[in-house]
């Protein structure tokens, strides 16, 4: 017994100081190999008395377990150490830059159009479009603006022919005409798009964007117009309260007509929408003129409704603090990166209009 105890203690000591897996494995076979020390001790069991055998066998088994356990722990220990050492050597500088991220952006005009469409979609409007090139009739005459009408002077028009028959639409209102001519009431549409006027300075660009709105049904009155625009403005600017003022105005294609101002103030050099005592004109609207309805074959004794036109670029400028309209169309990489929107920022009702 003392022999094997001694063997055990010697090997435990050996294993404690050993740091090499191969050497540990050598010890393992030294002990438990075919002619291993412990294996040989087991072989001796057959030649001793039953009494002694029982005792010795039990001792041997205990020693065997202890040593084997020690060996496997030791191997694991060494392996772990080796792996850690290896990983330590593999360490890289993770603060080095990642591969290039290519960040694309959506232009503010497109983003604002999507925001507007999303808001009006919520109250049942669908989106219509019309061509950028229009004929004189759809752009003016059908909209109750005959040639001899001074209101035409309010629109500096680009023409494509000398007879002034073909032109670049000066507003999105001809989409109203097209929509009503090709369909039957009721109508409930918005029509965003490019519009053109031949003036150009800091606040005017020869091309800009408008969204037209039209709702024609049996009993649509000015209260609905007010409600619709009030809803839109509040949603668009993402404010709880909005100060809004309807003011009489004149457009040949609506009557009564109104211009809508919203309240604002300047705080720390930034424009704050919805408060303050200054007024900012943001859109024109009114009840569609019976002459227009007549021109598009809608019975104005049965159907009536409202229309509005909003400057998209201007809305975007107000909401996102953009000062210069001309910059919208100058394709400056810096400007596009700065004011552009992430393509995943899709305005929607459930996720919110904007981040």
């Amino acid at each position, binding site marked *: 017994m003392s022999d094997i105890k001694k063997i055990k203690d010697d090997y435990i000591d050996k294993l404690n100081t050993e740091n090499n897996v191969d050497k540990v494995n050598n010890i393992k076979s030294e002990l438990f190999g075919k002619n291993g020390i412990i294996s040989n001790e087991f072989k001796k069991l057959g030649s001793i008395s039953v009494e002694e055998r029982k005792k010795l066998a039990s001792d041997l088994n205990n020693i065997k377990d202890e040593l084997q356990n020690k060996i496997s722990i030791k191997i694991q220990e060494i392996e772990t150490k080796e792996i850690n050492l290896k990983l330590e050597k593999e360490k890289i500088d993770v603060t080095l830059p990642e591969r290039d991220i290519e960040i694309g952006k959506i232009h503010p005009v497109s983003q604002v159009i999507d925001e507007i469409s999303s808001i009006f979609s919520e109250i049942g409007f669908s*989106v219509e479009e019309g061509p950028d090139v229009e004929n004189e009739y759809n752009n003016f005459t059908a909209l109750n603006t005959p040639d001899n009408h001074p209101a035409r002077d309010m629109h500096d028009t680009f023409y494509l022919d000398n007879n002034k028959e073909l032109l670049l639409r000066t507003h999105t209102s001809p989409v109203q005409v097209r929509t009503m001519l090709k369909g039957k009431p009721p109508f409930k549409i918005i029509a965003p798009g490019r519009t053109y006027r031949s003036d150009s300075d800091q606040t005017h660009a020869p091309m800009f964007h408008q969204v037209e709105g039209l709702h024609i049904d049996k009993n649509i009155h000015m209260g609905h117009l007010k409600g619709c625009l009030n809803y839109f403005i509040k949603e668009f600017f993402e404010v709880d309260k909005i100060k809004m003022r309807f003011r009489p105005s004149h457009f040949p294609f609506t009557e*009564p007509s109104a211009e809508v101002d919203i309240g604002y103030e300047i705080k720390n050099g930034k424009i704050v929408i919805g408060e303050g005592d200054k007024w900012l004109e943001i859109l024109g609207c009114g009840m569609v003129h019976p002459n227009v309805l007549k021109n598009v074959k809608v019975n104005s004794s049965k159907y009536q409704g409202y229309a509005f036109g909003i400057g998209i670029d201007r809305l975007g400028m107000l909401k996102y603090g953009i000062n210069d309209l001309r910059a919208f169309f100058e394709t400056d990489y810096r400007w596009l990166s700065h004011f552009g929107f992430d393509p995943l920022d899709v305005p929607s009702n459930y996720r919110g209009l904007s981040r």
Partner: protein
Amino acid sequence: MKFTVDWLKNHLDTKFNNNQIIDKLTNIGLEVESFESSASELDTFIVAKIINAKTHPNADRLKLCDVDIGSDKTIEVVCGAPNAKNGLLTVYAPPGSIIPKNQMKLSVSKIRGVTSYGMLCSESELLLSNESDGIIELKNNKYANKIGEQYFKNTSEKVIDLSITPNRPDCLGVRGVARDLSAAGAGKLKINKKSNLKYRGNQNINVTIKKEKVQGCTTFGSCLIKGVTNKESPKWLKDKIKFLGQKPISAIVDITNYVMFDLNRPLHAYDADKIDNEIIVRSSSKGESFEALDNKKYILENDMCVISDRSGVLGLGGIIGGARSGTEYSTKNILLESAYFLPRSIRKTSKQLNIDTDAKFRFERGIDPLSIEEGLIKASELIKQICGGEISNLDVKKIENYKKTIINFDPFLFEKTTGFNVTNKELIKILEKLGFNVSKNKKFLKLVVPSWRPDITQSIDIVEEIVRIKGYEHINTSEPVKTRLKPTLNYYQKLFHFLQRSVASKGYLETVTWSFTDSKINQLFKENDEEIPIVNPISSDLNVLRNSVFPNLIFYLKKNLDRGFKDISLFEIGPAFKGKNPGDQLTVIGAVRAGKVSRLSWNDKERIVDTFDVKKDVIQSLCEAGIDKDDIVIDDKTPSYYHPGKSGGVYQNKNEKNALAYFGEIHPNIIKKLDIKTEGLVIFEICLDYIKETKQKIKDLKSEYKFSDFQKSERDFAFIINKNFKSQELVNIIKSVDNKLIKSVRVFDVFEGENIPEGKKSIAVNVTIQSEEKTLNENDLDNINKLIISSVESKSGAKIRS
């Protein structure tokens, strides 16, 4: 339309203060542009401080002063005053100022070789005293905080500037504005005093309105005023003229102008002694000419309404008078004209001749045809009062009588349109105050429209009048009606939305550029499209509608490259015009990519952007937008602005006529011609209109889910094949061997050169084979392999590489 509150009060009894009046004007649709003191010549003189006064390099007696005028930068002024010294507060006049003493206008000038921006003023120069030895010395305690502010307080009366909409000619006169205000409860319209003017004798210059096919004049009223003394206007009148932003000329001219702005009744005064015998109102003949009061000679077309005498044209009726018969200080006898000209005629003539005058502006919008006498009387009274003279009887010639406009108005229309109700009593009161004659006719109101309201012709106009005067704040805010008539977006609108965002997500910045472009650049991209010139372009380099998105994209790409950006990805989605008729346009995406991939990367090798970068972007975008990648067919025919060997067209299937997209390198000639400096430039375009609409919704497109768990095998093949043979075709041949078993074919190597015969290339493909029914054994696989090799060899002329 400009006037002062005092002027308004000539017509309106009101207890309203200025702000209340301003608010009321806005609320009834007479938009107030501004309410400010009229600009004075003295406004430009400002308080300034000399920061540093040093001696002029070329003149000992002059000083060079750095002057703080309250802006970011100091201004350099040369000054001869001995008292100019550091820290002195004084008065500065910028270039453009008019010095009160000598009425000289300052300009930027060089004084002994040094540029002086404006002047520091002495009291004498500002007419404050005779002190001229030095510049003004302002007291520190009073002016130290006022640097940059106006030195002279503008004490002139504030002027209201209204922006009058084209439907309201009546409000182009102060009385009309007063009437509107009175209807809205802002006071009481004063009743015109009855004239006690005494008339002597007849207007003995014969007036004839000729009957013509086109006659622009229906009524011509006139009177003679004999023995006047024309002179400078009295102060009150001069002030009024100045408030209007105009220059006083002489009493007679100022009076006619004053009456025009007061009553909206244009008048014209002729020197009666310069009229040759008689007045004939007629249509012009082509080639006639006259010199107008603006000192320009106008050559007339046919059918313009002219006032003439026996010697020829005197003036254009309702637009501008002629120099020949104009009044002067020496004028003794006047013929005063008050006429009615048709808006249509005025507009046509003034457009043809490009003339804009206050009278034209008013006649074009419609003057009160019944204000002829009123205008003559008011002006005559003033002329008599200021210039003396005797007034003849009024002479009014007409070829047409004014017809009253009568509207039968159903009061219910008001509520139906506005959504709220006003009592008949209130409604009638408003209309009467606006000048309507109202009588009841069962449930209707019979309304006689006042003659000064040519804009009112039908019932809806009446609704507008009532709601405008009542106030838009009375309109209720109804909850939006949420009923939906059809889906928000149609297929192509959704496609637009998807593609826009999917291209952006590939790293492209979206831009929006003009729909017009420079014909010289457009030329390079227009292919066979017709050029669409704009008749009146904003500038010569934006003179045509763009036939393609690329002219602008390339132009702005170059600008950004010139700004120092090297790696640029830009795209635009918008119209490309194919003809000049409405609807001749396509919705396209154009995208450009320049520079390198992985520029200055520490771990990746940098390389120039190439055709396969944009091919990936375009195909991936199309797939994201819902196009099946397996349907896509690539062709190598592309528009001429692409590199002929490094570009391709994308088709939705092989029978499609129009490519829905193109991609590739831009043609080197274009890069050279436009002088674009970049390492690489690749582009792609997608035409949304050529994408076929799928009627099926995605819920219908999701078919039964099938998959195979049987072992799959991969085999590699390398073929030697003609250099021009397209890999797409090779892949198709292999797939067609067994569409069921061959799951995918992947080209993993293309190689030319060493060991490959001239004119040939080696293509290596990896083929995945898998059955849905069983595990394929070696035998099965061998058969397939053999079939693949034999098919490829027989169909393409390729040889398997051993």
